[in-house]
């Protein structure tokens, strides 16, 4: 493809630079405008079926919310007048907003400015209506104590916001548009009864709102065009007017229609992540049509980048605790490129390269760009992607078809759907347009469960007995006895977790039907059931097992030092753990240094991690979720390794009390993988990826110099191909910057594995003299400029 070189040479359009700077300079506010509209609508529709109430609230929002267009925009639409606004959403959570409203501008993570008059109005006009009736309050009323009792081991999610992590059927939306979907719902209306009838009616209302929303943008754009004479605004007006009544036909129409879909999904759901999925595939016919009709590559890139900016304008207002777990406002517009066609041939096309070029220009957090690789991925694609990875935005992240597709198929996904998988949110796996994956049902802290098992079920941070009392390390005569107790502890918490998750799902069904979303998830329209009622073709629930590295390292240390080599007594180790190693630095040093660690290609250690991850995945198979589907395991934490670490006292891997757990999901504990990336990957590959169909996360770190030469890029692609052969589902690469290296100087223990590779030998960064470290830092900074 000669086009690849042409695309790689395209500069960042001036329009994009202007829009980007303006967007980043604008302050971020929390807003109550939609809350006001929703509340008023609910008051006017009391007594109507919930799905109708919700549809009317959405329709009112679409008709009334303040809209704005930037004079230079070519793709328009937002759910707040300002960019990156935090939307207060009372249907799901009003109480936490009441508690935290004043702290939003100053809280440590994900801050928002607030207008004082909004706080007053919220408390006087909005909160009283929702008090006791929001999802958050209803969940708390029903299962609050149960959730709290298990909270240190299991974090139950989706308690105060709508379920997201969904990849809608964008292709269908593009082909039908709101009017076509409305017609489909109408065709079912007459023959349907009761709840089904309500459902179709709710879809029709939502589509009426959607059309009106587009018309409003057309009107505003036309008004602005008449004032400014800017041709882009006239085009926007034409596009929006057309989309309100008919499907998209060109690339710019398809991009605009796509963006409307995601804005409206967020206006209905305010959920973390609705993901476009394989945009390079379903947008390609529109792209081709426009290219044949004189659209230049430059124009295609500019339009793409206009949408890329839009992906950054919707952020997610979480409560402060949730913001710690999922830091950085992620709303997860995950876009997948590459991958395979149904027949197994490579699916890469020009859009795949255009999307990579857009990412290299913008280097913004959204979209969350994901590259699907497989054993026949073209070298050009891998090289282009490697260059973008080397720019340090952490994207694209890499997903491996060779691991993901078999995992999905072994969890009941058809071959056709598995081949067409997409990614939602951060790293969660999904089929395209026909699943409610409930990917973040809960996070299960296996390290905390081990702590309770070692200490008679007593939480070492609070002194309270929260787990099963099965004995302690001194009473387990063999390592096998310890393992038996650990299994029982996990079973106990898993049972209680499933009870809570089921309850949460029921609440969503009762309170948060989502007609608009359901209209773009197969088979909801066919069966007349909302996604919350199990209307989707696939109904999963995902639980994350956390964290394989700490479990493997802790059990390896106990096995080796206490049971096998007897270098420590059980009591010595327990005492050291209870006192957070205060008087036992040498015990800690032995735990850290005298036992091999996960991440170094030491089979017996890695197998301990794999064993418990397997045990967990198999345990989940016993249960069914609230919509009749199965549970599946994930192995990822995003940023939750930090707060989840805060819940765990000192562990036998030498980790201090409340320190973070290993990051990512399947990564090694920071600084404990000292044998380089290949050894890490060999260790990681021992985990059962075929059972982790909810998604996995591996973080790897590289120095920027690796990406500076063609040879380096080529070698990096070889590493990607090996990841593919090893059957590892996911890996994401962080390019170290000056800050990271300064941190490595300061906290060498966390960066033990950081190496500088030169001809002839490999130097460990933390073992270099300070002036040599300084030189590397200086060069890293210089090269990064």
């Amino acid at each position: 493809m000669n086009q690849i070189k042409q695309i790689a040479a395209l500069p960042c359009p001036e329009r994009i630079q202007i829009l980007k700077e303006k967007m980043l300079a604008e302050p971020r506010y929390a807003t109550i405008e939609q809350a006001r509209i929703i509340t008023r609508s609910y008051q006017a529709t009391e007594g109507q079926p919930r799905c109708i109430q919700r549809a009317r609230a959405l329709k009112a929002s679409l008709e009334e919310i303040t809209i704005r267009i930037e004079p230079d925009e070519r793709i328009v639409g937002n759910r707040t007048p300002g960019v990156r606004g935090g939307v207060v959403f009372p249907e799901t959570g009003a109480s936490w907003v009441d508690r935290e409203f004043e702290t939003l501008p100053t809280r440590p993570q994900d801050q928002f400015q607030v207008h004082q008059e909004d706080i007053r109005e919220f408390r006087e006009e909005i909160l009283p209506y929702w008090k006791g009736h929001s999802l958050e309050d209803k969940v708390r009323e029903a299962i609050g104590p149960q959730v709290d009792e298990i909270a240190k081991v299991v974090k139950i999610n989706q308690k105060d916001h709508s379920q997201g992590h969904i990849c809608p059927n964008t292709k269908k939306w593009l082909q039908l548009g709101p009017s076509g979907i409305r017609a489909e719902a109408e065709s079912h209306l007459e023959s349907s009864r009761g709840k089904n009838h309500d459902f179709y009616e709710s879809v029709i209302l939502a589509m009426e709102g959607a059309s009106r929303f587009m018309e409003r943008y057309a009107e505003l754009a036309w008004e602005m065009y008449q004032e400014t004479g800017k041709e882009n605004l006239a085009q926007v007006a034409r596009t929006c007017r057309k989309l309100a009544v008919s499907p998209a036909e060109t690339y710019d129409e398809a991009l605009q229609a796509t963006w409307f879909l995601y804005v409206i999904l967020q206006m209905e759901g305010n959920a973390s992540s609705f993901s476009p999925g394989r945009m390079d595939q379903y947008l390609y016919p529109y792209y081709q049509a426009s290219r044949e009709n004189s659209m230049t590559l430059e124009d295609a890139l500019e339009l793409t980048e206009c949408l890329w900016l839009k992906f950054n304008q919707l952020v997610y207002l979480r409560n402060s605790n949730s913001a710690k777990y999922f830091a950085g406002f992620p709303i997860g517009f995950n876009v997948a490129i590459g991958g395979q066609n149904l027949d197994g041939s490579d699916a890469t096309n020009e859009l795949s390269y255009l999307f990579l070029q857009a990412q290299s220009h913008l280097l913004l957090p959204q979209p969350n760009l994901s590259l699907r690789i497989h054993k026949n991925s073209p070298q050009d694609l891998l090289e282009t992607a490697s260059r973008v990875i080397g720019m340090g935005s952490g994207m694209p992240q890499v997903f491996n078809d060779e691991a993901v597709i078999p995992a999905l198929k072994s969890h009941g996904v058809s071959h056709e759907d598995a081949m067409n998988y997409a990614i939602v949110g951060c790293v969660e796996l999904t089929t395209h347009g026909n699943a409610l994956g409930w990917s973040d049902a809960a996070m299960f802290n296996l390290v905390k469960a081990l702590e309770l098992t070692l200490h008679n079920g007593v939480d070492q941070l609070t002194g309270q007995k929260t787990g099963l009392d099965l004995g302690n390390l001194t009473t387990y005569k063999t390592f096998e006895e310890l393992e038996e107790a650990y299994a029982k502890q996990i079973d106990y918490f898993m049972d209680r977790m499933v009870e809570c998750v089921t309850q949460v799902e029921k609440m969503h069904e009762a309170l948060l039907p989502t007609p608009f979303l359901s209209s773009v998830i197969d088979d909801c329209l066919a069966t007349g059931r909302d996604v919350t009622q199990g209307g989707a073709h696939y109904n999963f629930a995902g639980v994350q097992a956390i964290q394989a590295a700490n479990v493997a390292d802790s059990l390896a240390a106990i096995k080796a030092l206490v049971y096998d080599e007897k270098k420590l007594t059980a009591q010595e180790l327990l005492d050291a753990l209870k006192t957070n190693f205060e008087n036992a630095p040498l015990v800690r040093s032995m735990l850290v240094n005298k036992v091999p660690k996960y991440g170094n290609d030491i089979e017996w250690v890695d197998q301990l991690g794999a064993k418990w991850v397997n045990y967990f995945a198999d345990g989940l198979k016993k249960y069914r979720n609230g919509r009749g589907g199965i549970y599946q395991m994930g192995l990822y934490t995003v940023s939750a390794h930090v707060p989840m670490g805060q819940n765990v006292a000192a562990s036998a891997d030498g980790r201090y009390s409340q320190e973070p757990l290993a990051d990512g999901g399947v990564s090694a504990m920071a600084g404990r993988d000292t044998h380089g990336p290949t050894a890490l990957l060999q260790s990681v590959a021992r985990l059962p990826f075929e059972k982790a169909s909810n998604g996995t996360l591996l973080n790897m770190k590289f120095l920027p110099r690796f990406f500076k030469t063609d040879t380096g890029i080529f070698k990096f692609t070889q590493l990607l191909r090996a990841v593919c052969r090893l059957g590892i589902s996911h890996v994401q690469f962080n390019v170290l910057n000056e800050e990271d290296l300064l941190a490595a100087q300061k906290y060498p223990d966390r960066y033990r594995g950081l190496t500088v590779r030169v001809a002839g030998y490999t130097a460990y960064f933390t073992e270099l003299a300070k002036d040599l470290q300084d030189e590397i830092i200086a060069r890293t900074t210089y090269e990064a400029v």
Partner: protein
Amino acid sequence: MKTGVIFELTRFATHDGAGLRSTLFLKGCPLSCPWCQNPEGIPPEPLLWHNPKVCLQCGRCVAVCPTGALTLTDRIHVNREACTCCGSCVDACPAAAMSISGQTVTAREAADMLLRDQVFFGPDGGVTLSGGEVLSQWQFAREVLDLCKQAGADTAVETCLLAPQSAVEAMLPVADHFLVDIKFMDPDLHRSCLGAENHQILENYQFLISRGADVLVRTPLIPGYTATEDNIRAIARYLHQTDPNVRYELLNFNPLCRSKYDALEEDYPVQGGALSAAEMDSFYDILVQEGISQIIKE
């Protein structure tokens, strides 16, 4: 089966030949380059290695040392005369600050270590033997490479070529590539600085060329030693005369190994840091002037 003494395995080696490689370092070297990056690889016998950066100074090693070779003052000091490398201190150290550099393994074990990452090698990666000097254990090296080749791996040898020609010849069937270090052209400088003559090296180089071996010549640019115009010009001229199609790489000086000398309580003689891009360019100009057409850059 042959056994050999090795001191390090580098996995994901990205600078020891094409592609992704695993490199095994063999102990013992007939040269004594003052700038050596792997000083622990020069002596053929094992060596106690102490890493002061992770040492807790708990003194357990001093207490268990049967020969009294260790003392703790401002740091742990090793009396190399007294140390027998028995490994007692390695076991006792809770911080893994003590290790023995030098381990005897069979050729099978060595090959298995190298092949462990075969899944990464891809179309052009493979295994590399380095050192120390590989040819100082050439029988062992030959067996290791033979096993790797049997497993389908690409094989390379990094060598200074100071060895009997028979040793070089023995490597021909098992080594796909030779990465040859030539440091000085001037024989006197070679002798006085590195402790050995270079005529054997040059003869072996010519021998490799005559046998059609795949050779990449490399010269480390060491400030105050090899990095002079005269030296590089002389090497380039000689290489071009011997093989007009020679592939030649200049390795920029890398000061990182100084930390090893600190650990060994030895002075590192090279002052200064890596050469600037401009300095590198002026050396590349010399190569061009001498007719070298295949200049290999990273």
